[in-house]
């Protein structure tokens, strides 16, 4: 984030209480102005920064390799961040917990949009389909919750949903 410029307030603002509507609006406008200067939305744990020029750790749920469309998208993400790819596989609960703690940056492996993990993980836009039981589900990639800049980048790599 960039340093804020020293506030030069005209004297007529002195009588303005911060609780009034104009006060709130002023705070809003001010923060919006500040926003345009730095990354918005930002990551809450800085995943984008950690991955940048380093390693992108991708966990695959329930399979050894990602599907072709998933692989293509993950490669695109790695390329964007100029990062080496590292694949992790294992038991799904452990992978989700690793995602929650930031050891894994991205989860793939035909995760349905209706995943029961949805309150623990952040979901991308749908990128393909999978059949579970006799129902067709849209599949997504998963990121750590609150990593909104990283999620935006993942969605950008997915592009149009099928």
């Amino acid at each position: 984030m960039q340093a804020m410029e020293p506030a030069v307030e005209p004297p007529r603002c002195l009588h303005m209480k911060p609780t009034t509507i104009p006060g709130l609006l002023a705070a809003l406008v001010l923060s919006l102005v500040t926003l345009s200067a730095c990354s918005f939305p930002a990551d809450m744990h800085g995943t984008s920064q950690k991955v940048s020029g380093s390693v992108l750790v991708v966990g695959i749920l329930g399979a050894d390799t990602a599907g072709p469309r998933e692989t293509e998208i993950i490669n695109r993400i790695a390329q964007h961040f100029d990062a080496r790819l590292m694949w992790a596989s294992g038991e799904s609960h452990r992978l989700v917990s690793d995602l929650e703690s930031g050891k894994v940056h991205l989860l793939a492996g035909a995760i349905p949009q209706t995943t029961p993990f949805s309150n623990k993980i952040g979901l991308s836009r749908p990128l393909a389909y999978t059949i579970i039981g006799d129902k067709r589900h849209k599949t997504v990639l998963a990121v750590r919750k609150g990593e909104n800049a990283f999620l935006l980048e993942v969605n950008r790599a997915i592009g149009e949903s099928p």
Partner: protein
Amino acid sequence: MKHYQQLPEDIVDALTHARRLEWWTLGFISSIVIVMYFAVGSSQAMKSAWAEDLLSLLPPILFLAATAVERKPPTEFYPYGFHRAGSLGFFASAMALTAMGGYLLFEAAMTLLNREHPSIGSVRVFGREVWLGWFMMAALLYSVIPPVILGRKKKKLARKLRDKILYTDADMNAADWQTGAAGIVGIIGIGLGFWWADAAAAGIISFSILNDGLRNTRTAFAELMDGAPRKIDAAEISETAKQIKHRLQKRNPNHRVQIRQTGRYIRAVVVPERHEAISQENAKLLADKDAWQLTEVSRAVSSTTALDAANEDDKR
């Protein structure tokens, strides 16, 4: 037969105006509820703001219902008429406001305790990736504007009409725009990377809503308990009621003045100081073995009788 006295013209005008405002409110809030439904993501403040908008449909409905029936003539089943419809509606809307404050506080506390980090995705608009937070803020901004305008107008009318449902509704609208604004601040906070911003903003707002709700519930409780009329914006006895009581008291020494509020109207009863419950014999005359249930029989004086102590009661 004239059951109620004529209302002054400006009060009638204000009532018509208030009813029109409430129809507008219903229309606007419904549109807000629909817009917000499509923009609600995983933002806590956003969900709360939506639930709250849904809840704030209640007071306008109650107001319209109460004003529609309150001046209907008494019936066999409602021999006192329908003035109390206002009291009942007030109680319900006060409870709704309290529930809203409580819900908001609970949700915010849970989010903070669980350290939930909200994820907000994006949508593709004309080939560009746009963060959903922007849409949420736009929806919230839309949800803020009508309540501000309507709420201010209603508060003025509510004071004039002594209408507590309308007043609670104005409080509800104030709560609406405040939670809307808190939602915007919360989403900006999320965008800046502060996971707690959203819940903290909602939590702070919830205190003032809860406070308004509890104060209104207290007054509504008093009204249903035949308490002395309360001020519209505080849980104190209203000046008008004090004045009526004082003047009646002066004209009727050795009497007690009982005063209470039914809806927006005030009713006063003057009873002799040594007034007792009806005697066993008299009660038996009227109710046979259920006599214990009958505790009072009063007789209203003709509408033009002087307000001074009735002579047959005071033998001085």
